[in-house]
Structures are given as C-alpha cells and as structure tokens.
C-alpha cells in the first residue's frame, strides 16, 4: 500500500501492480508506471494488449482486480468521482451525441463539468473559432466528417480544463492531414499544462510523445523516451522498436 503522502508532487498518474482479470483471462497484468505533470505519455501496444482496459481503470470506468493507482492524487478504487472532476476522456468509439448540434454537445458537457453558464456561450465561440468550426456551430454532429468529429470530441474532453486527458486511439481512421492537426491540438493542450495520456497504433505518432510505454500481453515491455528506446534496441524508428517488442506477444489478436 502506498499512502497519499508518498505520491511524488509532480506525478499525476501513479500505478502499482494494477491488474484486471476477466474470469481466467488476465487483461492487464501487474502494471506499474508513473506519468509526470504536463507530459505527453504514449501508451502503445498491439490490439488486445490491454491498453483500453488499463485506461478504463484509470478513468474509473472499470474496477481493478488488484493493485492500486492514483490519478491526480486520488485513489482510483475509492475516489472515483473526485478523479472524474479532474480528467477528460475520449473513447475509441465516437461518443458525443450525434443528434445534438455542435454547440449543444459543448454546452451539455460544459454544464455537466460545472463551467458557469454565463461563460459557456463565449467559450464555445472561442473554441469554434480556434478549430475553424464557426460555420458548423448549428450543424448536427452526425453530419460532420470523422476527422472533425474527433477534433470536436477532443475539444469537448478538455473544455473544462482537466488536469489529465485520456485519449483512446483518437486518430483511428482519420487521414494524415487531420492527424497532424489533431496532434497540434494535443500540443496546445499540453502547453496549457494538461497531461496527455494517449494510446495509438501509429508509430509516427509515438515519436511525438515525451515518453512511450509499449504494452505486450497485458504488461509493459518497455518504457522510455522514443530516442532512448530506439538507441537501446538499435532501431532506426519507432516502428522498428514496436516490431521488435511486439514479436514477443503470445496472445492472438482478439
């Protein structure tokens, strides 16, 4: 057991032996890592490696089987609701309301996170201007192309200025140009001091992260800066790093 006082000030996520079992299947196996404040932390791994499960535990959507973790200084087992006030989350599956307009989705989540009502309209306009979405303010979300939806979902996830934002494959299925724009948004958020915890399949994106962890079969196989990993494994790029490590996987793709 670690107590609150033992968590280093500058660490916003601390996981110790975090484990999740579904029946006999251990999806996440004794995961231990730390994420520093303001970091862009890449969470890499093949399909079925346990990335999403680990992220869902940290967000309070799933209860751990054993081990412990602290997010923004709160225990994920006992202080879930407090954690939820300090985090933003963007799931793998687009989860804004398709039958609501762009501004209505923003207003809904701003209201839920307690942004004062008088500020919502102004901040919504600012956000839409930054994204270049002014013309789409009144559009139903279902009419937007996927790339725009993802940018909107990310913006909604950080609208309430959380301490940490969790992004589960945020750029899945979008074109390279939009992916680039998306990462610019991530950098802007990180500059404002928001810690970014992101899973991805794209190894070029891994290069954009401050540090990356590579998950294989439910546990972390490697964790370091992209440059250090490349040097250690004598790989020319992250793709190479990933292939060398992921080759050890015994689990078949699910």
């Amino acid at each position: 057991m670690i107590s609150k006082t033992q968590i280093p000030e500058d660490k916003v996520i601390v996981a110790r032996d975090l484990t999740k079992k579904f029946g006999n299947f251990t999806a996440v196996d004794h995961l231990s890592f730390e994420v520093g404040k303001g970091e862009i932390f890449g969470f890499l791994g093949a399909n079925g490696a346990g990335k999403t499960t680990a992220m869902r535990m940290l967000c309070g959507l799933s209860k751990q089987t054993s081990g412990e973790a602290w997010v923004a200084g709160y225990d994920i087992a006992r202080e879930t609701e407090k954690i939820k006030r300090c985090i933003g989350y963007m799931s793998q599956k687009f989860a804004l309301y398709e039958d609501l307009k762009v501004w209505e989705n923003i207003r809904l989540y701003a209201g839920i996170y307690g942004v004062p009502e008088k500020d919502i309209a102004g901040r919504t306009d600012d956000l839409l201007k930054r994204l270049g979405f002014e013309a789409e303010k009144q559009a139903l979300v279902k009419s937007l192309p996927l790339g725009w939806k993802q940018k909107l979902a990310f913006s909604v996830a950080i609208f309430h200025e959380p301490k940490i934002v969790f992004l589960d494959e945020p750029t899945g299925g979008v074109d390279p140009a939009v992916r680039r724009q998306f990462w610019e948004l991530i950098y802007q958020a990180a500059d404002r001091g928001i810690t970014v915890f992101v899973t991805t399949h794209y190894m070029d994106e891994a290069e954009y992260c401050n540090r990356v962890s590579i998950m294989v079969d439910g546990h972390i196989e490697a964790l370091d800066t992209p440059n250090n990993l490349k040097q250690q494994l004598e790989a020319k790029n992250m793709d190479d790093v990933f292939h060398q490590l992921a080759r050890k996987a015994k689990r078949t793709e699910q």
Partner: protein
Amino acid sequence: MVIKYLIEKEFKQFGRNPFLSKFVFIFPFVMLSILPLAANFEVKDLNLAVIDNNHSSYSRRLVQKIAASRYFHLTGVPSSYRQALKNIEQDQSDMILEIPPSFEQDLIREKNARVMISANAVNGMKGGLGSAYLAGILAEYNAEIRQELLPSAVSSSQTGLEVSKLFRFNPLLDYKFMMVPAIMVMLITMICGFLPAFNIVSEKEAGTIEQMNVTPVSKFSLILSKLIPYWVVGFVVLTICFGVAWLFYGLWPKGSLLTIYLFASVFVLAFSGLGLIVSNYAKTLQQAMFMVFFIVITFIFMSGLYTPVDNMPQWGQYISDISPLKYFLRVMRLVYLKGSSTADLIKPFLALCTFAVVFNTWAVLSYRKSQ
C-alpha cells in the same frame, strides 16, 4: 444545476426523433378510436340449432321466444343430436338446444320438464355467456308457463323472486365506457414503460453513455433526467386521451381531472422507474425490448384490464397486487365512471407511491457508472 443541462438534452433528442415525437401524438388517437370498439365483451348473434323432438305447441312457443331475442339466430332445426353436433363442427351453429319428446307431457303432468343446452366452448366467452343468456330466456319461459298452469301456486307459494337489474355508473352496461379508461392506462403504460427502457440501452449501444460515465454527474441526476421527460410525455398523452374519449365517445370523467392527473403523475413515475431498471440490466436493445414486453404483458393481464381481479385464483390476486397497473386502472375507472375523489382512493394512492419510491430507488442503485 447539472440536471438542467441533462433534461435539456433529453428534450432536444426527443424532439429531433421524427418518429418518436409524432408517434406519441398518433398512438393515442389510433388506440382509442379502434380498441374500445373491438374490445367488446357483449355476445350477440349466436347461432342456435334447436332439436325439437316434441313438436308441441309448448315447444314451438319456446322456440319462438328464443328466436325473438336479439341474442340468437335460429340456424337450423336438425332432427338428431348427432346432426346438430355436425353443425357445430362445421361452425354453422354455436349452441344446441334439445327439447325431449316428452316435453309437453312432462310439463303438464309433472309441472316439470327438462331441456338440454350444449354450447361450443372453443371460444369460452361465447359459450359461457351464450348458455347464460339461453338459461335466462328459459327461466322467463318457465315463469310464464307456471303462471298459466298453476295460477294459484304462483300467487301463494311460488311468489317467485323477481330480480331487477340496475347497472350503476354505467347504466347501459356499455363495454366502451369500461374499456376507454382501461385503454388509457395501457397507452400510458406502454409509452412510459417502453421509452425510458430503450433510452438508456440505446445510449449503451451508441457508446454515448460511457462519455457520460466518465463525468462527475451523479447517478441520481442522470436517472432523474431520464425520468422527467417521460413524465411530461405521459401528461401530454393523457391529455390527448381525455380529448379523444370526449370527442369519440362523449365520455368525460365524472370525477375531477386533477385527481386523474395526480394519480397519473405517480403512476408514470413508478412505471418509468421500472423501465429504467430494465435498461440498467439489459445490455442490448433486443434484451430490453423482450424484458419490457414480458413485464408489460404480464402486468396488463394481471391488472384486471380484461378480466376482473376477483375472478383470479388466490395466487393470481397476489401477483396482481404487485402490478402498479391494477391500482391505476381501478382509479381511472372509478374516477371516470363513478366520480370518486382522491379522498376515496387513499389506498391505491399509497400503493402507487410505494411503487414509485421502490422502483426508482432500485433504478438509481442498479445504475453502474463502472464495471
């Protein structure tokens, strides 16, 4: 207030669902205009075959009396019981009346004669009511004959018991008047039971509920935000029902509208709560649909909507006690036809309140923000 944003969202979504928002208005019209006319328990035009083995003036008089009634059609006079049964098998007649050869003799000599009624009970309601009507005509005939044959006996020992019937609160015993309030209950049950159940489940399927679950929104607010819109919809539907019942059947509640609204508000809360419980346990729309269907059908049949609760076996009556429909149905009929006031209906009111509290507490507790 977080709940304000959530309710706002529910209403916007409801309004934007072109099917649902129209359906809520069309549904009451269609159901109230068609069902009360179809759900009629009165049995008319029964096909009767008479086997007259006696061929006397007395037997002919009996047959004429029966044929004169508006309930029976004389479809044939077969010569034997076997032939008459064949008629039933071919669906040409529903009932058989057999008059024995010694009918007149027995009647005059022994002042007592027997006839036999056989009814096709494939449709139990038709068979049962048909025999009862026929027995009624026979009893009338019996009284007439007695008076003729034994004038003294009638005046002295056999004064007879004359029963006069008076149908209170529904003088013409019109089934429509009984069915209209019941169909209103059914309508509200379906709209307020099905819609909330499907609401949360479809959010589960769309994945939007997960985005909601990572927010600090409380379970209570979330459930309340799902309840309130259907509560409002329930009121709208009820109001439309009042209008349709008045327009089509000239039926207006004898009691106060406020009494009905009061009971409806508690009933809707209770039943929507039940719908939400289902949606918490169901993972897919299909599961939710099946569960709600099962619950609603069971409750409708156990509520006394079609058959009186008192006719049910004891265990059936116990089950009907846990159906909120039973109480609301009773209240609707009483207020509509008899004009009962809230003060007369304290018991069903308390029962409905209990359901509302239990179901909604259960709904909040069974909602899981994490797995």
